[in-house]
């Protein structure tokens, strides 16, 4: 602005400005120094922690899942190592293009892609998701040669669950599957989040589900130094994983195989229990399914096939389906009569072939004049039990039967057990809503007496009650796992070896009922099925009505196959000191001696004699029609 300034003035002005500039610079540097002091001294602790958090990552070490073996040590569920091709979605931008490129040298089916999508949707966080499992060595080699083209895609050695026997015993063994969001929630609720960090699989059904805590093991931790890309650079410390515990079952898998084979194509269930321990020897639900389908995430087609089948293979009939026990209920009713004092052993009751209650005639197959308790079981008299039910009253029946566990869960160690129905006026009040429906009619008591009506029990409950009868009144909690074996120490922990309670039956009463049941297989309704058996076996046939015939005579062939009655049979053997008590139910198998008893024969023959049948138990076309 100033015109004609002298050089001196100008130099002086310049000097001023240099001083101002230096002051400004000094001020700015002081701000920087202050900032450094703040970051490096005042907040040093905080940033130090942040840097350590950055640097150190805790990587989970997934424990090996425990194996499952039967009572003789045969492997039912095991692990094997295999290579999987995995994609880390957070590091791969164009998933489809990447998969297309991979498909050029690795076999990737549309099924694999669909499964990949499904797992991706369900995945918990940005974990890597398998696109192919069980790679062949050649495929691994081909990928390794091309891997530089695929950042974010890796081959991982993983442990897979394998069920070597496939569909055998699949309902009770169950299966594992990938952890989905619902499983994740459950894990969080149980406070197990840390232990499942790194785990991809969890038990979904059967023992794999109920013993998840034992089988899973404890996740280990590797403390590693990671770089900004999240890659481990150096191992700092390691706490190894503790493998999951092994399960040793009470199950005899060979017996299970025999039992499953005996059913052939028929639907139904069989439960065999060791009366002295409550250990389950066989637990059959037919048809079965292959649990290996579920391990990698089941394909939609397989799932639909299993789900839409009218045979409902996924249903565990042995513990979830409740059926009327039919005449197999009679030995228990006989015990009720004796224990309550309403009947004596010698007492003969009139059997005109029917029983009249409230003007209604309850029918029997034939008139026998008079029968005592022993005969009533051997010939399966309905009239005897119509009267007995009437004498006991519904509350008397329900009260006595509940001791055996009828109508309540047995507490078996596989999930998904049903309660069944032990009918009583109280049950009706809970079950129905209108006062009309809730009312208990005396006639209903009469039907309950022969195991029909509202009675509905699972095959497990029936076998469980029979085992109690066979062992003299000791109630065990039925269980499939005999020992939980600690994988590290080898320590064996027994499961439920003590009876829950003992029912104080009079030995004479037990003896009489058991003797009558032995007679059933000698001279009664089970005689044809057990002809020539070299062991003494107690049993009882039964027929569970599917279709109410309202007094008409049941003529086989006139009703559709699905409306045919269910065939029921219970047995214990050897009669002197039972080592097995079983219940068999064949859906729409007709009456008890027709389908269920021949299956029981094959199972008992194997259990007691070791003889394996060559073909499924045939239906006994000539079996006597009976209930």
């Amino acid at each position, binding site marked *: *602005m*100033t*015109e*004609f*300034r002298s*050089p001196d003035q*100008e130099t002086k*002005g*310049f*000097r001023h*400005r*240099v001083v101002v*500039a*230096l002051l400004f*610079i*000094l001020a*700015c*540097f002081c*701000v*920087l*120094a202050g*900032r*450094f*002091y703040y*970051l*490096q*001294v005042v*907040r*040093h602790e*905080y*940033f*130090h922690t*942040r*840097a*350590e958090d*950055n*640097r150190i990552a805790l990587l989970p070490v997934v424990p090996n899942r425990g194996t499952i073996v039967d009572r003789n040590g045969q492997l039912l569920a095991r692990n094997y190592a295999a290579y999987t091709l995995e994609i880390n979605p957070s590091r791969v931008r164009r998933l489809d293009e990447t998969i297309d490129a991979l498909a050029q040298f690795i076999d990737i089916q549309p099924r694999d892609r669909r499964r990949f999508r499904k797992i991706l949707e369900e995945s918990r966080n940005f974990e890597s998701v398998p696109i192919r499992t069980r790679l062949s060595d050649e495929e691994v080699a081909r990928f390794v040669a091309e891997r530089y083209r695929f950042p974010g895609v890796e081959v991982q050695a993983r442990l897979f669950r394998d069920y070597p026997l496939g569909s055998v015993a699949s309902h009770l063994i169950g299966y594992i599957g990938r952890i989905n969001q619902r499983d994740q929630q459950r894990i969080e609720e149980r406070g197990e989040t840390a232990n499942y960090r790194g785990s991809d699989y969890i038990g979904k059904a059967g023992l794999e589900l109920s013993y998840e805590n034992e089988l899973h093991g404890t996740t280990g931790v590797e403390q590693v*130094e*990671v*770089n*900004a*890309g999240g890659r481990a*650079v150096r191992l700092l410390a390691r706490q190894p994983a503790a493998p999951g515990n092994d399960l040793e079952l009470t199950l005899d898998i060979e017996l299970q195989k025999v039992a499953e084979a005996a059913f052939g194509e028929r639907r139904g269930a069989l439960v065999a229990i060791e009366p002295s321990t409550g250990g389950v020897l066989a637990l059959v639900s037919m048809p079965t399914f292959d649990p290996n389908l579920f391990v990698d995430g089941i394909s939609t087609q397989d799932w639909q096939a299993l789900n839409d089948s009218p045979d409902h293979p996924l249903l565990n009939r042995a513990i979830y389906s409740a059926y009327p026990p039919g005449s197999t209920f009679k030995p228990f009713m006989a015990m009720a009569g004796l224990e309550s004092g309403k009947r004596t052993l010698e007492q003969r009751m009139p059997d005109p072939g029917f029983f009249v209650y409230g003007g209604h005639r309850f029918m029997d197959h034939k008139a026998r004049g008079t029968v005592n308790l022993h005969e009533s079981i051997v010939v399966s008299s309905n009239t005897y039990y119509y009267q007995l039910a009437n004498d006991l009253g519904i509350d008397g029946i329900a009260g006595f039967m509940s001791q055996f566990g009828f109508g309540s869960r047995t507490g078996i160690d596989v999930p998904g057990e049903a309660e069944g129905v032990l009918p009583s006026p109280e049950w009706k009040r809970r079950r129905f809503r209108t006062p009309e429906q809730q009312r208990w009619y005396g006639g209903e008591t009469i039907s309950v007496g022969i195991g029909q009506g509202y009675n509905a029990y699972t095959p497990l409950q029936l076998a469980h009650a029979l085992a109690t009868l066979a062992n003299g009144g000791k109630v065990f909690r039925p269980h499939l796992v005999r020992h939980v074996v600690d994988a590290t120490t080898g320590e064996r922990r027994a499961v439920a070896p003590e009876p829950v309670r003992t029912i104080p039956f009079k030995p004479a009463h037990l003896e009489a009922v058991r003797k009558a049941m032995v007679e059933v297989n000698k001279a009664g309704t089970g005689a044809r099925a057990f002809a020539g058996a070299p062991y003494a076996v107690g049993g009882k046939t039964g027929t569970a009505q599917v279709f109410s015939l309202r007094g008409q005579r049941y003529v086989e062939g006139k009703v559709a196959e699905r409306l045919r009655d269910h065939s029921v049979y219970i047995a214990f053997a050897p009669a002197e000191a039972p080592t097995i008590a079983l219940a068999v139910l064949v859906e729409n198998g007709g009456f008890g001696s027709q389908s269920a008893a021949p299956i029981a024969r094959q199972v008992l023959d194997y259990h007691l004699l070791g003889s394996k049948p060559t073909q499924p138990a045939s239906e006994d076309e000539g079996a006597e029609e009976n209930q």
Partner: protein
Amino acid sequence: MMTEQRFHPLNLLRAFVRPIDPVLLAILAVLLGASFLLMMSASPERLENQLINTGVALCAMWAAARLSPQRLLSLAVPLYLVGVVLLLGVEFFGETTKGAQRWLDIGITRIQPSELMKISMPLMLAWYFQQREGAINLRDYLVASMLLALPVTLILHQPDLGTSLLVAGAGLYVIFFAGLSWKLIVPVVILGVTGIGSIVIFGDQLCQPDVDWHGMREYQKQRVCTLLDPTRDPLGKGFHIIQSTIAIGSGGLFGKGWLEGTQTHLAFIPERHTDFIFSVLAEEFGLVGALVLLGVYFLLFLRGFHIALHAPLLASRLMAGSISAIFFTYAFVNMGMVSGILPVVGVPLPFISYGGTALVTLCLGVGILMSIHRHRASSPD
């Protein structure tokens, strides 16, 4: 001067070292030494390249130091014109890298004309004020401002905020040292301070995605917004600032030791060999290392201003003052952004960051300072 004993090796050496100012050279040696040390830690594979870069840059410095200020001034106009033409060339024919047009392919090599402007800009303005010495009035400041605005606008349009800031700074320093009235400076400074202040205060509203910042690119807006609140994008743009402040803060008083910086060696610090190399220093050498660096820089500026004060020629004074001030700008903006008090604008840490172009430019500046220093006596040799 070199008539006798022409081929005596001692004389040859003397001729070789004569242009060199030992004080500046010593400061430079400390900074370059620090650069090599940090490079060995941050990116050892680039050390060799940086040594070559340094060699080239020192040659450029020596060459500039050999020229007299008058000779340099005679180059001002042609350099400026060539620079503007090249910038226009970039505008129309430039190559695009990382979303910005900065490079011009001239057949043999690619050059970055904006870099040239960091030297030719203050040179041009110094030459202009030299022409008007003794009669500088308001109109001259206007002319100077226009000379400055043209290349700055072109560089800003590439877009390269960091370089345009430095070029603008270099020009403004010349204008400031030429004696622009405080009556004009003070209001502009107040306006600037209130502007920045209001951005800080109303940052949240201004950073809403639908708010358009007139004349600014989206990425520039993002940088400012990320600076105001790095946590708004911790994995993306805020990552750089967060990680570099962690590196600095975790260094503590004495640092983690050379080659021991976890943030550096595990690659958490982005661009750790270039713009963010200061966080390597602060992590491995702590507050002590950072303050020593501030001290060395301050010595550099002091020496620069000392040379400016003793220069006989107006243009020399303006050049020396501007160059010293621009060194400061580099250092302050870089350390400010790395420590999280200034936006990330892509300015290297002078004499330390990896990169040949910036180093050559900076050493040219040192060379010019040396030349001015050698010609402090009123008569040129």
